[in-house]
Each structure stands twice: as C-alpha cells, then as structure tokens.
C-alpha cells in the first residue's frame, strides 16, 4: 500500500469515530463563532429535537414501525419534570431520571397491546395516544396549568453552576445530544442493531433468523420513548415554561418529517433532518404562517424523489455507483 492508500484506509476504518470527533469539536467551538443568543437558542432547539428524532428514527428506520405520537412522550417528560420539581420539590436531575423511568413503564404498557398493530392501524393508535395526552394537558388545569401553561420550572444546575443562558445551555443540550448520538451509533453497529435492520427489512425473514420481532419492537419503542422523555425534561428546564401546544400532534408529525427527510435508518440523517426542519422557518420567515404546508410539501417531494431520505438516499446512491464501478473494473 502506498502512503495515500494507507491514509485513506485509516480514514475509512475509523470513519464513524472521526466524524463524531469532528462534529463534537465543531459543536464545542460553535459558541465562539457566534455569541448571538438568538442563534444559540435556535441550535439548542435543534439539540433537543435531535434527541427525540434519534429515538424515533430507531423506531421508524430500524424497527420498521410508525409512530405519530412521540410528542406525547416528549410532553410527558416535560410536564413530568415540571410537576416533580415544582410541586414535589424533587432535585431536577433525579426528577429527570424518575420521569424517564415512569415514561418507560407507560411506553411498555402502551406498547405491548399497540405494537401488535402495524401500518395505518399503528399510526392511528399512536396518533390517538397523542390526542389523549394533549387533551389531558389542556383540561386537567389544576395540575398542568391548562392552556396557559406551567411556569416557574427551575433551571438545571451542577452545584452553584446554573444552566440558564443560551451559552451554558448549549453545552448541556449538545452534550446530551452527542451522547445520545454516540449510544445510538453503537447500537446500530452491533448485532442487536443488525437484528433491528433485519426487522425493518422483512419481519418474516428476521424471525427466521432468530430475531424475537415482538420483543424487539417493544424494546425500541420504550427506548425511543425514554429519549423523548429526557428531551422533554431538558425542554422544561431550558425554557422554565411548558404549554400543551408544544406537544400536540403537529409536533409529532414534524418529528416524523425530520426522520423521513434526514433518512430512515440513518443516525446521521436524524441530525440533518432535525437541523433542516428546525431551521426552515428561520430561512423563510415569509412561509412561517404556512409552516405546515411547507413541511408537507417537502415531505411529499422527498418521498417522491428520494424515498430513503436525504442522507440515506444520497449515501445509497454513491455506494451503489461505487460497487457497480468496482464490478466493471473487475470484469474489465
């Protein structure tokens, strides 16, 4: 091997680790590039979405299921943390874990019957779940604050170090997002992840290879609910205010759009999808009022022309080209 080939091979071999390192460095330096709190607030929101979308992408892209109700778990996490810290005075960090655990139980109890369904039926069931939660948040006002929302949620803090401004929150939220990214990357590159990819590809084939399809779906559902709940808790402590409309069905569909646009079954795609869809209203404030139309339009276009999503679709295209060219080279 020549030196150039050696370097390329090294890059190829450690591509995931290198990308993660590069990304972490970029994110670490980002507040040095811009100190505008508005911009940082926006990238912080991306970090929150990334955590939810990563979990949802495992569920949609790997386990091959659909959920139109993940904002419910996001909302449970947010309101759970709000109520636990304000009404019960529990330490925010502890509350976050406690709420995540409870949400895992809720997801388990819901997942066992609901994941017997597939396709449209599963979509309807999860949509229904979101409606129910949204209605509870609106109506049960002595606990949730009703339509006007829940105020006065404390900031997260380590000792006396409070995460209250965008600069500090940047490191907190992106720390969580990168950790989730790392854990998800590990998962999909493991044997369990391959089992999940098999499940997304073909359920009968996956079962014939020894994948317990029912359990796998439930496990991933619970995992994605836990990630959504953690993101929700962070949301509550970031804005110190939560209201029901942050967790309605349109938020759920936006999450699905992020998964689809970034690329189903692509962890990196989750990052891109979350970033693109979160930034979109900023780039086109003219369209802000018509946000849902724009999102819908983008979804239709992507599904028509690149059904695998941007990252997965382009990656597949390049990989297929390379393989075919190598095949021709070998034949020649």
């Amino acid at each position, binding site marked *: 091997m020549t030196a150039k080939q050696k370097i390329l091979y090294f890059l190829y071999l450690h591509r995931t680790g290198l990308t993660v390192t590069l990304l972490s460095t970029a994110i670490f330096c980002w507040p040095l590039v811009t100190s505008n709190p508005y911009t940082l607030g926006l990238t912080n929101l991306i970090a929150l979405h990334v955590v939810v979308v990563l979990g949802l992408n495992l569920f949609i892209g790997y386990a091959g299921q659909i959920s139109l109700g993940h904002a419910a778990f996001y909302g449970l996490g947010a309101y759970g943390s709000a109520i636990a810290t304000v009404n019960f005075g529990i330490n925010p960090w502890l509350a976050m874990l406690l709420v995540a655990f409870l949400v895992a139980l809720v997801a388990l109890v819901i997942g066992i019957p609901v994941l017997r369904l597939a396709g449209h039926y599963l979509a309807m069931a999860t949509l229904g779940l979101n409606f129910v939660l949204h209605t509870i948040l609106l109506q049960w006002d002595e606990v949730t604050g009703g339509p006007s929302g829940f105020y006065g949620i404390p900031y997260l803090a380590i000792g006396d170090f409070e995460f209250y401004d965008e600069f500090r929150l940047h490191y907190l939220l992106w720390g969580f997002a990168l950790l989730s990214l790392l854990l998800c990357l590990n*998962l999909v590159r493991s*044997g369990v992840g391959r089992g999940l990819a098999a499940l997304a590809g073909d359920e009968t084939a996956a*079962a*014939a290879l020894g994948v317990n399809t029912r359990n796998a779906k439930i496990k991933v559902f619970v995992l994605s609910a836990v990630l959504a709940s953690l993101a929700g808790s962070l949301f509550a402590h970031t804005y110190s205010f939560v209201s029901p409309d942050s967790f309605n069905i349109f938020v759920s569909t936006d999450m699905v759009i992020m998964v689809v646009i970034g690329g189903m079954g692509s962890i990196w795609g989750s990052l891109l999808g979350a970033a693109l869809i979160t930034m979109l209203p900023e780039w086109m404030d003219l369209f802000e009022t018509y946000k849902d139309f724009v999102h819908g339009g983008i979804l239709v276009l992507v599904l028509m022309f690149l059904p695998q999503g941007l990252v997965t679709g382009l990656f597949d295209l390049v990989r297929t080209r390379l*393989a075919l060219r190598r095949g021709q080279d*070998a034949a020649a």
Partner: protein
Amino acid sequence: MLRLENVSKNFGGLPALSDVSFDIPQGKLTALIGPNGAGKSTLINCMTGVLQTTSGRIRFRDIQIETLPPHQIARLGIARTFQNLKLFPRLTVLDNVLTGLTCEGGKSLVMAMFRLPYLRHRERSLKLRALEALDRFGLADKANWPAGVLAYGDKKRVELARATVGKPELILLDEPVAGLNAEETAAVGEQLNLLRRAGHTMLLVEHDMELVMTIADRVVVLDSGRCIAMGSPEEVRRNPLVLEAYLGRTEAVA
C-alpha cells in the same frame, strides 16, 4: 432429526396438508417435491412456525416445535432460505450474512448501546466467521457491496451463506434454484453437494427434477396436500403414483 407426525393444515376449512408424516434423517439431503399447489411451501411454513398446524406434531430432536414462534425455532438450529429471496438490500453483503448469526450476538439493547469490550470482541469473531462463509461461496470480494446491487445468482448464494453461517442443525431450502439458468443451477447444486458432504442435514424443496434426482438421498412426494410416495430417487422415479401425479405430466426425467 426432524419428524412430522400426521401434520394437517386447513385454511378456513380447505385442507392444504392432510396427514403428512415423514422423517428428515440426520446428515442426509431430503428432497420434497410435488406439483404446484401440493402444499410444499405450507409445509415449510409450518416447520418454521410461520403458520400454525391445524393438527399433528412436528418434533425436532425431542422437542415439539409446532407451537413455538419462528424465532425460537430458529434458535433451536433450524435455518431456512426463502423462495422469493429475502435479503436485506440496503445492508452490505457481509452484514446480510452476519444477520445469520443473530442468535449468537448479544441480545441486550443497553449493552449494545454502551459497546462493552466483550461485545466488541464477539463482534470481531462473528465477522471472521461471516467472511469465511462468504469465501466458501466465492463472494468474499463483494463483502462490502450493498446486497441490492448483486446479480440474482449472487443473491441466492448470499442467502445460502446466511443460512449456513450459524452452522444450523437443519437447513430448509425453499426452491434455491428457481429462476436460475442451467449454469447457475449447476453451481448452486455444487454448493449443496459440498454442504451435504460436510454433514449438513437439509430439506430441499425444488421443482428442478434433474437437480433433485442427482443430489437427494431421499425424496418425499406431496400431491394435493398428501404424501404419496417416499424413498430413494430411483424408487420414487419408478413409483406409478408419482409418475401419474407429477413426472408423467412433465415427462422431464422419464
């Protein structure tokens, strides 16, 4: 190794299998033949737990398997290939073969997320085994290709590699040469012969009579859901019932 006792399967009152009984002896290649609609695929689906039998027993070694779900049957050591290829087109060839080792990988989601050293170690040894399997089927140079771009014959071989990589005790092959040309059929036949000589127990469901007659140790004939004959290829070939039901019509080997 695998024994079917009076297996019946009805679809809403219509009998697809009635009272089918036969053995799959260890270390032999048993072929299951029969005209279209004879119930061959139904039988394989019953053996792998995809379908529930209406009545009768299926024993694998001493375990009754007819009520087990598919993944548990797979974990007992029964692997299968599918009539209409079920590869995962987006995964690489190597990853496709690695899915055949699912039973031996870790099962815990949480352990996998933290990528513990013992898992990394196991992953490496699984990868080596998958590469070996690919090598046996002459596909090692395409290990990193996405499986979707392979030629049809290569896909069939990947499926065989995936079915055999976990060293299953019994391999069920659902029409492995359907859609292949004569040359490719001969190649697959060669592979099956190698597997047979290596001591694998196999059940081959196939339409290609020439292949069946040359490599099968035993042949079982199904017709309209009934087992009408079994024996060595030679015996089956001479059986008048079989000739009438099947061979007589095609005259392919007569």
